[in-house]
């Protein structure tokens, strides 16, 4: 029986459970000095002077550097499509642009010495007007990067013919897709060592090769002069893609000092200066017929890029691609402007632009349903793209592979007991129960491996008949070792415990695309699958020689992990026997490029109870039907979906990164930030559905982000639904008690 598709427990777990994970903070690096960053305490200010004299007199302090000491050219914007004037100095030269911008670097023998000394560095600020709000930024009254002449980093816009003229019903909404913190449990950390020729850097990253390229480029080194190693990484959620200024400065310092250098940030530093996610203000408009057929949809949005042109500024590109969602809407318009503000730069966060698209259309279609007087489930069915239209190029240019949107909705509704839930809701409304029931639906399609890029995979057979996998993909909690070993074991018959897994070391693994955009299994896994097939082919040739038979007649028996002539199980040669006495390695590598991105889809149904007297919300049930194509290991998929849903619920109900009008962060630790805990979440109910994609040999789509994409609007819609009979039509996220209570008060005062 195939192990693929079965619940295989994770190979990597024991070391984590025993506390033996090898995170960067656990690395012992004799002789390493520590960096501590002195960060701007003002959101927008000229730096007049930096006085480090006291710091320099303190014990263990080796140096305090400012921009004058750091000979690194400012980094260009994260994407070549962006306005090139938005450069990023690694250390502030003249103007600090957010609270957290690096103004100086303290080098110390121990970490505590550095932290103490950093507090004594006196920075003279000349405050400049602060821009926190994106609409204000868009007006260009105060420019953050005056030489750019604008606060707009990048715009995506098209012609605007009037698409609503013929609509019988038109609704519009302003939706705040608020800024949230990725908040992986492991904060950022790195260690760097320069041997005179070459830099070795241990990075807390989602992809060693991308980090290597970023570090090499910034330091003016060849790629071959930098080795990046990613040991165990304690979560990333998109925000540990690429490289941060801090990591480049650690590498730079190691080279300058000729001594190992390390840096581990604090949680507050992480909340201040690791990229944040989301941060869009969306203005949507939907129109159609009275009986609920949507004919036109428009979304205009401002994306908060934060202080610099990082990855966050490009997210609207993805929002645009997925704007039309699962619906057959003849006219879809999109316009976005990514603007800089005096806040922490934004980056990719679980879904990166796609959850924002889903949240916008799913919230808006509920409003459209309300005005039409049609049930939210019904209106979705009326407008879904039908299964026979795939493959489909959408109005926005996305190339959807396959989809059974109505089937996913039906499955989720059945599992939820939708009709009974609506009846229960009616009962509570009729009786004026203070605890009202809300049912929220979100149907989504998303794009995984959104750039359609490929990845590297290699398989080598060892002398003892075991195997080594090398993958360009990078695990930071997704269970790659287990899933990849399953693929190899299934095809070769080599037991899982004899399969080594290598990743995240640029000297050991030739190339790689890392993990992000839910791409790992579909491209990294496919590459390993194809490399395995290639190794088996080579093995058959060897066995043909050994058994003096024709290659075509040699078959593999995966139960025994042995090859023999078809029809005669003996004689046979096991993997170990094939390797005996042969010097030539038995290995294969594959650079797999898929046919394109894949488009997972599904429906989430969320049931909430809202206390109308306090505004407090409890998620009672969350039912998710997610179709991510072929499933290799349901145990891992469950975990990915659960984690995704939790982060989705968190955005809908609790989490927001907030700044005061002066740009001071007011959510800079886990006490102030509403990070979701076990207490706020129910158990999740998953409804199985598997429609293989034709776009890769595994039939797999990505599943890492789907949970988040489906959950946020389902929960959000459920909260609004719970109080819609009171006249509430929208509530800004996060739907905290105060926001919900306010919405009820405003609606009922009317």
């Amino acid at each position: 029986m195939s192990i693929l598709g079965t619940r295989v427990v994770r190979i990597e777990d024991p070391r984590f459970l025993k506390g033996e994970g090898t995170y960067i903070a656990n690395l012992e690096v004799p002789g390493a000095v520590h960096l501590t960053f002195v960060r701007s305490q003002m959101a927008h200010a000229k730096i007049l002077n930096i006085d480090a004299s006291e710091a320099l007199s303190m014990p263990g302090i080796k140096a305090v550097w400012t921009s004058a000491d750091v000979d690194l050219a400012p980094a260009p914007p994260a994407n070549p499509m962006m306005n090139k004037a938005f450069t990023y100095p690694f250390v502030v030269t003249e103007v600090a642009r957010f609270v957290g911008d690096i103004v100086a670097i303290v080098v110390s023998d121990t970490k505590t010495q550095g932290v103490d000394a950093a507090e004594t560095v006196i920075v003279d600020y000349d405050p400049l007007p602060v821009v926190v709000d994106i609409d204000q930024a868009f007006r260009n009254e105060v420019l953050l990067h005056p030489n750019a002449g604008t606060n707009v980093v990048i715009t995506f816009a098209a012609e605007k013919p009037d698409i609503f003229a013929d609509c019988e019903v038109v609704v519009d909404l302003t939706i705040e897709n608020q800024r949230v913190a990725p908040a992986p449990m492991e904060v950022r950390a790195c260690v760097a060592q320069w041997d005179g020729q070459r830099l070795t850097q241990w990075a807390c990253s989602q992809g060693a090769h991308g980090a290597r390229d970023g570090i090499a480029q910034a330091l003016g080194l060849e790629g071959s002069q930098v080795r990046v190693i990613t040991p165990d990484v304690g979560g990333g959620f998109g925000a540990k893609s690429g490289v941060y200024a801090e990591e480049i400065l650690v590498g730079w310092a190691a080279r300058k000092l000729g001594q190992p250098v390390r840096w581990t940030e604090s949680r507050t530093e992480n909340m201040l200066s690791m990229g944040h996610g989301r941060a869009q203000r969306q203005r949507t408009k939907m129109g159609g017929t009275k009986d609920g057929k949507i004919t036109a949809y428009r979304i205009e949005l401002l994306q908060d890029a934060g202080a610099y042109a990082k990855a966050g500024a490009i997210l609207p590109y993805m929002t645009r691609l997925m704007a039309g969602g699962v619906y057959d809407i003849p006219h879809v318009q999109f316009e976005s402007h990514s603007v800089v503000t005096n806040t922490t730069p934004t980056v990719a966060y679980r879904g990166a632009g796609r959850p924002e698209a889903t949240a916008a259309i799913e919230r808006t279609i509920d409003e459209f349903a309300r005005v039409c007087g049609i049930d939210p489930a019904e209106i979705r069915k009326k407008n879904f793209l039908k299964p026979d239209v795939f493959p489909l190029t959408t109005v926005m240019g996305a190339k959807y592979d396959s989809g059974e949107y109505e089937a996913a909705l039906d499955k989720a509704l059945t599992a939820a007991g939708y009709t009974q839930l609506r009846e229960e809701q009616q009962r509570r409304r009729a009786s004026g129960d203070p605890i009202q029931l809300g049912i929220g639906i979100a149907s989504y399609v998303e794009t995984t491996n959104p750039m359609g890029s490929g990845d590297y995979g290699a398989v080598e057979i060892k002398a003892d008949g075991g195997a080594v996998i090398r993958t360009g993909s990078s695990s930071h909690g997704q269970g790659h070792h287990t899933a990849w070993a399953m693929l190899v074991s299934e095809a070769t018959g080599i037991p899982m415990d004899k399969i080594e897994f290598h990743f995240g070391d640029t000297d050991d693994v030739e190339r790689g695309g890392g993990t992000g955009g839910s791409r790992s299994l579909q491209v990294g896994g496919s590459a390993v699958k194809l490399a395995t097939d290639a190794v088996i082919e080579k093995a058959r040739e060897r066995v043909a020689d050994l058994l003096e038979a024709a290659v075509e007649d040699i078959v593999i028996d995966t139960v025994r992990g042995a090859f023999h002539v078809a029809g005669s199980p003996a004689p046979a040669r096991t993997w170990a026997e094939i390797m005996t006495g042969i010097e030539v390695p038995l290995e294969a590598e594959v650079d797999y490029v898929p046919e394109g991105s894949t488009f997972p889809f599904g429906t989430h149904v969320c049931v909430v109870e809202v206390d109308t007297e306090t505004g407090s919300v409890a998620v009672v049930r969350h039912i998710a039907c997610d179709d991510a194509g072929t499933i290799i290991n349901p145990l891992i998929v469950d975990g990915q979906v659960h984690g995704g849903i939790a982060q989705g619920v968190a955005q809908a109900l609790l989490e927001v990164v907030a700044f005061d009008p002066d740009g001071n962060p007011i959510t800079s630790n886990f006490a102030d930030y509403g990070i979701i805990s076990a207490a706020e979440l129910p158990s999740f109910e998953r409804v199985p559905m598997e429609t293989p994609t034709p776009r890769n040999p595994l039939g797999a789509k990505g599943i890492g982000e789907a949970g988040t994409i489906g959950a946020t609007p389902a929960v959000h819609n459920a909260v609004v639904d719970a109080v819609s009979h009171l006249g509430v039509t929208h509530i800004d996220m996060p739907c905290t008690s105060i926001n919900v209570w306010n919405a009820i008060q405003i609606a009922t005062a009317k």
Partner: protein
Amino acid sequence: MNEIYTLKINGTEHQVKDAWVGESLLYVLRERLGLPGAKGACEQGECGSCTVFLDGSAVCSCLVLAASATESDIATVEGLQPDGSLTDVQQAFIDEGAVQCGFCTPGLVMAVHHLLDENPSPSELEVKEALSGNICRCTGYGRIFAAVDKVIADRNK
């Protein structure tokens, strides 16, 4: 002010030398005594990654002054099963898929052991309450609840 003091950890006495007395137990365990099982993710008592037992109570070791724990019995994840095997809680985490990036995991394992030692048959609400101080960003807690349920069922067999 540096002093020498002794901590009793997992039944063994460890001498702490050259330490500043203001150091947290988490810091001393990880940086001075080579016991990196407990993890620091916030260092202000908000995440539970650093959970250890102090005289049988589960505490955030980032909030405990190491030098104040000289009279206490300290237990860390490393001491759960000195022979290197897995406890029933650890095994249940594997069986139920309760581990992802692993960073929160040692703290959660300690918290679950503590909960079930104190209360062998906790209600769903009691489980949630007991684990609400342990933040896990990866799993959504669902598989962790499943692991707890499994241990309860197995122990009550």
